[in-house]
């Protein structure tokens, strides 16, 4: 039973790795922030951070519910081109 977190951009630096597996059956947004510790959790709490669940942007982070086998991507503000 695991949910995969993918950290993009500078969130990967804060997380210490680009990916992390969490051994849990389900995961909500508040659980995620609490489980990430003060520094990373604080960065994730920014309204500028967006979240994708299995490749689809989550419109309302507060209502997020990830399940076993899901991939959750944490996306800070972009800087392409």
């Amino acid at each position, binding site marked *: 039973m695991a949910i995969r977190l993918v950290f993009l951009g500078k969130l990967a630096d804060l997380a210490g790795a680009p990916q992390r597996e969490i051994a849990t059956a389900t995961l909500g947004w508040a659980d995620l922030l609490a489980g990430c510790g003060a520094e990373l959790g604080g960065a994730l709490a920014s309204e500028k951070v967006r979240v*994708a669940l299995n490749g689809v942007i989550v419109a309302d982070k507060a209502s997020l519910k990830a399940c076993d086998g899901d991939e959750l991507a944490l996306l800070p*503000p972009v800087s392409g*081109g």
Partner: protein
Amino acid sequence: MRDVRLLETGFDPAAELAGFAHAHPEAGGIASFVGQVRAGQGVTALELSHYAPLTLPGMEQLADEALSRFDLMGLQLIHRVGQMTPGDPIVSVCAAARHRRDAIAAVDFAMDHLKGDAWFWKRELRAGEWHWIEPREQDRDDLARWK
């Protein structure tokens, strides 16, 4: 012709433009923009990361939006990911149209969105240390022009 590519390795923007122009003999004009890693300012490398499930689909959607918004005969979007050095091309956009204003506006539109509304993250290596590039206020303003 709609040609959207995300590349892990280097490319030759002039050769891409030549091929694109050759594919559109009926176009009156072809506008293009090439973004490259700037030499100078102490940057020794630049790295672009992306999120595969979103980045290429987002670029394809952007191409579709540009094709529906402007009167184009073809559009090419090419974006690098991975590590680059000064002088390397990062992004190339080419638009072919019957009339030049459509081609130029489409390139402008696509670049604003690739810069401010596409799933890329950029960092620069300066004096041996990586620095993440934050979005500029100007990029947000540029993007807002199209809303």
